[in-house]
């Protein structure tokens, strides 16, 4: 319970003006220095009938009389400085009220509701207490995963993982702001607290096995924490050998599996002209969808004049196409015929409840990443959709939720191609088919607006490009206020989380990951009570 002295410590000031759209203005108590206030902190306001929760979105300096600013009092004198602080001049904070809790029993039972009004004049304002935060975000439990702490507070902010994975989510932030760490934590949360399986396209080999932190010490990967629930697939055997790890499966992709759409997606990366892309479709028509690439590669070696004449492909287009497609030939994982069907293998693992991390090994360039991720996802999408349709018509259990994690998301979801790629489709409609995405990107402005608007929960680290900030905050209530919060995040370990899985936006200091202690809480829950209960539940189902 909070005591009077606690309250005094948290007391900030009084509401003096404001509006619901722009937030309320709070005059700080004279004893409070604006320098102790941080944008993004949680605030509780005791209105006459309701308790409001909000976030500090701005801090400003005010004076009761503008003349005081033109003829500033002599604050080099500590006495005068003390007197004028809070009287002649005062601090003002802007608070965006986001939630309300009724103070009566019914209101408390209902839980936090979105704020539809503002607190009345001169309502008392204080820093939110730990209990307040717990009321809003819930305590850690079987579904809620502890992601971090609010700024300057010890309470845990928990994300409801079951709720989170129902929609597509995004992790955004400039390079080096901790996107990978956050993503790793989210994936752990999904493995620990939900029945979701993940398919992770791991471009930089950071999620499966050990990754390195910014401080250069090694941190455990998912396979090490959840050996029984995670399988690592690899595109690059040599890389596995160098790292002395053994993957569960080595991925090979047959030429027959590559369709013209896959190449179309690589248009910019392979520097193909529009005419070249059209030529690919012509070639596919000529040779068939599953043979066109192999046949085209053969043509590169032999005399192709007759064919290109026949298909009315211009000589320069052919040269452009040849140069582009030859870049694919250098990938050893692309073979004439794949010995085993990778997609089937992935789906087998996923069906048995295991998450799959696809490591790209040494092929961490965009060509390989975009090609493989799109190709595999397209086929998984089709199969998953089929399975769900069958399950729906037969009224049997639908497949478990699948979350596909992709990095460099703007390469798949930019406005030019989002309408065509499978990822675009998943973001828009696959929620119904139990497939959602976790997109990771440093240039959210490059992602199609329609896709962005479908992203349920956004987790953003520091972004300072105006366009990126705008893109992330599109359609969010209190956008301009959150904007100032977002651009003032620290460049490490801090993130603004908002959207579907949370009742209100929150700035968190992301929980620690990488120390021996942290691993104790981040492994599977099997050893704990809830894990046992899960297993029992499974037995009875």
């Amino acid at each position: 319970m909070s005591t009077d002295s606690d309250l005094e410590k948290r007391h900030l000031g009084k509401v003096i003006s404001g509006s619901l759209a722009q937030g309320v203005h709070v005059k700080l108590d004279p004893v409070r220095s604006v320098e102790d206030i941080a944008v993004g902190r949680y605030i509780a306001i005791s209105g006459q009938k309701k308790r409001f929760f909000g976030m500090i979105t701005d801090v400003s300096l005010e004076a009761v009389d503008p003349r005081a600013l033109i003829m500033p009092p002599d604050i080099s004198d500590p006495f005068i400085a003390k007197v004028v602080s809070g009287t002649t001049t005062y601090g003002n904070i802007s608070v965006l009220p986001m939630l309300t809790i009724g103070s009566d029993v019914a209101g408390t039972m209902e839980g936090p509701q979105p704020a539809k009004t503002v607190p009345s004049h001169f309502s008392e304002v204080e820093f939110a207490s730990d209990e307040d935060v717990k009321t809003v975000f819930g305590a850690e439990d079987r579904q809620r995963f502890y992601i971090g702490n609010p700024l300057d507070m010890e309470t845990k902010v928990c994300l409801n993982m079951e709720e989170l994975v129902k929609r597509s989510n995004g992790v955004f932030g400039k390079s080096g702001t901790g996107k990978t760490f956050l993503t790793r934590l989210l994936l752990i949360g999904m493995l620990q607290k939900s029945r979701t399986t993940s398919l992770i396209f791991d471009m930089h080999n950071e999620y499966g096995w050990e990754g390195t932190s910014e401080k250069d010490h090694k941190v455990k990967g998912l396979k090490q924490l959840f050996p029984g629930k995670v399988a690592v697939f690899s595109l690059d055997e040599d890389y596995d050998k160098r790292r002395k790890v053994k993957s569960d499966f080595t991925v090979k992709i047959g030429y027959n599996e590559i369709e013209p759409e896959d190449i179309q997606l690589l248009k910019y990366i392979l520097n193909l002209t529009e005419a070249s892309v059209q030529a690919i479709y012509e070639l596919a028509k000529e040779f068939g969808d599953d043979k066109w690439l192999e046949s085209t590669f053969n043509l590169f070696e032999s005399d192709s004049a007759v064919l290109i004449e026949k298909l009315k492909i211009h000589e320069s287009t052919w040269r452009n196409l040849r140069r582009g497609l030859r870049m694919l030939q250098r990938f050893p994982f692309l073979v004439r015929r794949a010995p085993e069907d990778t997609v089937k293998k992935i789906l087998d693992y996923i069906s048995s409840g295991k998450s799959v991390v696809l490591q790209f090994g040494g092929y961490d360039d965009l060509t390989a990443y975009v090609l493989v991720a799109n190709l595999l996802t397209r086929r998984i999408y089709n199969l998953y959709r089929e399975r769900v349709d069958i399950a729906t018509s037969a009224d049997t259990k639908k497949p478990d939720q699948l979350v596909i994690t992709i990095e460099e998301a703007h390469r798949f979801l930019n406005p030019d191609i989002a309408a065509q790629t499978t990822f675009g489709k998943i973001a828009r409609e696959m929620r119904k088919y139990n497939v959602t995405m976790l997109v990771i990107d440093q240039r959210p402005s490059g992602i199609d607006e329609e896709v962005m608007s479908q992203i349920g929960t956004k987790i953003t680290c520091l972004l300072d490009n105006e366009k990126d900030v705008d893109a992330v905050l599109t359609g969010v209530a209190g956008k301009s206020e959150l904007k100032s919060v977002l651009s003032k995040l620290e460049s490490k370990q801090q993130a603004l989380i908002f959207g579907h899985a949370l009742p209100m936006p929150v700035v968190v200091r992301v929980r620690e990951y990488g120390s021996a202690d942290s691993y104790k809480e981040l492994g599977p829950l099997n050893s704990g009570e809830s894990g046992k209960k899960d297993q029992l539940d499974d037995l009875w189902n």
Partner: protein
Amino acid sequence: MDLKQRIAEVVETSNAEFMAQCYNLEGAPALGSMVKTKSKDYDIYAIVYSSSTHGIDPNRRIIARGQNAGSEADIYKANPQLSKLLSTDFRALIVGYNKDKAILQYLPPSPASIYAFVYPCDMNEVRDFTQSLNFLSLLTDARLSVSPDEVITAFLRYAGQSHPSPNDFLVKAGKEIAWLLSNDIRRLDSILKRLQK
């Protein structure tokens, strides 16, 4: 009240202030000090804002007498009647009163009684009175023959001595004045500069 402590007697009285004649020549309390006197059934607190010494007969001007005297004291020795012909009086602005042991910081219902004795307040009384600073508006709004700001600063410096931490008291009082004078920064600034010295 101790007979020895009384210093003056009310000789002119009104709701907002009174004038008292001192028993001793040049025995007026310091500018800004707090005195109390009686009304019918309560003590009235007031702050001294001016004092003067003059002849009791308004028709006779005081003339200089010390041209051949060795010192100022010699003047009185040579003219013993002077102390009876001259008088010192002071004016005090009423800032509150004491009814049933409660200190009320606004004007009493009736003025101080004429011929009521006037006593200096001791430090405990000053401290008790200045626990609340609502009376300051009476001072800032007063129209006096001397600058009210001089009276305010003199009183607060004097009252500060009665508090365990004079500086904290002055900051508190300063903030109160800052509110009262929020539309007159120049005046506030000049008061604050004089408060701490």
